[in-house]
């Protein structure tokens, strides 16, 4: 039973065929590593799932129902959240404020709705506990390490009870020690039955957490197989085209 199913997705920008007949599926609690060289179509695919782009042809099924997203909010409402590479955090706000941006918990003083910091901080604490992260809700994001920032960005997806989380290069810009922290975050999402799709260039990170590996080359899906049946060497060959298909 898959939660997200892409059927024959193609996307062209003018004469450029960015995606060509790509079919993929994701099960709850499954981590899919999506790999490919620059320009292979990874970002385009993720942006179609997240509602940033509309596919030229093909169909997306979410929870066994045909869906069409015309804007990112449509995808978010259904439970698909994307965490961008630059994380989209506001450094001058606290972790909890960042998590709750546009979804603040309020209470009323007379007719005036005001922010309920206590409720938001408590909820943020729970979220970080679920993620087994030591991030402090009341700390400003600018004081945080790369791993903690990732926890804040992923915390946002927890708030909306996302069913599918798309991670764009989650380990690209951080130190080796923090990579382990981020990989743990991904394992926590998996343990809670959330389907995770990660885009990454970092082969060891992808193999450390993924159940399945998909490889795109020039817009075509050239591999989609269990991680334990593949190897970094094979994936490298698939990305570069040394092996045609696997």
């Amino acid at each position, binding site marked *: 039973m898959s939660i997200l199913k892409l059927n024959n997705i193609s996307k062209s920008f003018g004469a450029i065929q960015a995606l060509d007949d790509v079919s993929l599926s994701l099960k709850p609690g499954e981590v899919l590593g999506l790999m490919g060289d620059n320009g292979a179509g990874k970002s385009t695919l993720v942006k179609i799932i997240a509602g940033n782009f509309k596919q030229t042809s093909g169909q997306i099924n979410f929870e066994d129902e045909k869906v069409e997203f015309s804007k990112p909010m449509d995808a978010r409402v259904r439970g698909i959240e994307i965490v961008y590479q*630059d994380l989209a955090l*506001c*450094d001058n*706000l606290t972790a*909890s404020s960042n998590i709750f941006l*546009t979804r603040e918990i309020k209470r009323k003083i007379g007719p005036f*709705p005001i922010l309920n*910091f*206590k409720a938001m901080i408590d909820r943020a604490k729970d979220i970080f506990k679920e993620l087994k992260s030591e991030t402090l809700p009341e700390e400003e994001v600018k004081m945080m390490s790369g791993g903690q920032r990732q926890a804040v960005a992923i915390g946002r997806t927890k708030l909306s009870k996302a069913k599918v989380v798309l991670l764009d290069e989650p380990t690209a810009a951080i130190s080796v020690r*923090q990579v382990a922290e981020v990989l743990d975050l991904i394992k926590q999402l998996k343990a809670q039955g959330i389907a995770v799709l990660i885009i990454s260039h970092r082969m060891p990170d992808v193999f450390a957490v993924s159940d399945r590996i998909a490889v795109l080359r020039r817009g075509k899906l050239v591999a989609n197989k269990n991680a334990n049946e593949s190897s970094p060497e094979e994936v490298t060959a698939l990305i570069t085209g040394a092996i045609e298909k696997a």
Partner: protein
Amino acid sequence: MANKKPKTSISNIHEIGLLVALIIVMLTFGFTTDNFFTERNFMSILRSASYVGLVAFPMTFVLISREIDISVGPSVAWSGVFFAGLIKWYGISYPMAAAIVLLWGIFLGYFVGIARTKFFIPTFITTLALWSALRGFSLWITDGMPVLISDKTFRYFFGGDLAGVPVVTWIMLITFFVFWFISRYTVLGTNIYAVGGNPKAARSIGINVDNVKIITLVATSFFAAIVGILFVARVASGNSTVGEGMEFDVIAAVVVGGTALGGAVGRMTGTLLGVLFISVIGNGLIHWGIDPDLNKVVRGVIIFIAVVINSNLSFKRNSGPKED
């Protein structure tokens, strides 16, 4: 109420430093002049601080959201001239004239905001143009002469005192409280900080960045119009030459108060202290008998020093995420 305030990294260090500086400056003036520590002089400081403060609070939001409005002085002058002119030349009632002037203030701020968000014209440029145009038009339409008004009730109330404190100071304190409250406890306040902290992120999360900026600019223009009307009450006329250099005092007060010109950082309590600081300095230098022209020089130096301290602090505060 067990509601925790959001913590900041270096929470009050700037405000405490500024408070200490304010006390030192006041003691210095107090011990070196005869008339500084008098009730009359304190009321005078409070009065001038109040006019600056009324615009400085919304201006704090403008700077936090990475914009600026330098048209404040001419805006105040024009609002006063407009207000007095409506009453004197067109026989419009006081409340009606006030309503028209305030609406015009809102419109001007909206114009600056639309130019910024829809046509991508920097607020510095639009308000620079307004700075010139509003002063020029005020001078031209009045021939540089004051437009006199006579209503004593209006003048004595808005230009006078209430419970021993200038009415404008009461208005300023209420305004401070409102802006302080907005900045700390409302979604709008959070959004203003978010827009200043990372506009791209704010937009991608779904905050209406354009609206946030327009709101802060409208607020500033609106309060400049209020100050224009309050000035009329004080001097019984609309005057095309008032508010000269007021944009300097307002922006200086905000920056001295710890708000970063580059946005993201700033607090209303800091701005309140900055306003008092600027006003005390201005007043104390007069008591020292310093030439008004040199007074401007000294204030320029003080602003520069304050900005140097401020930018060093914010550099340390913004030196990026810690790596381990």
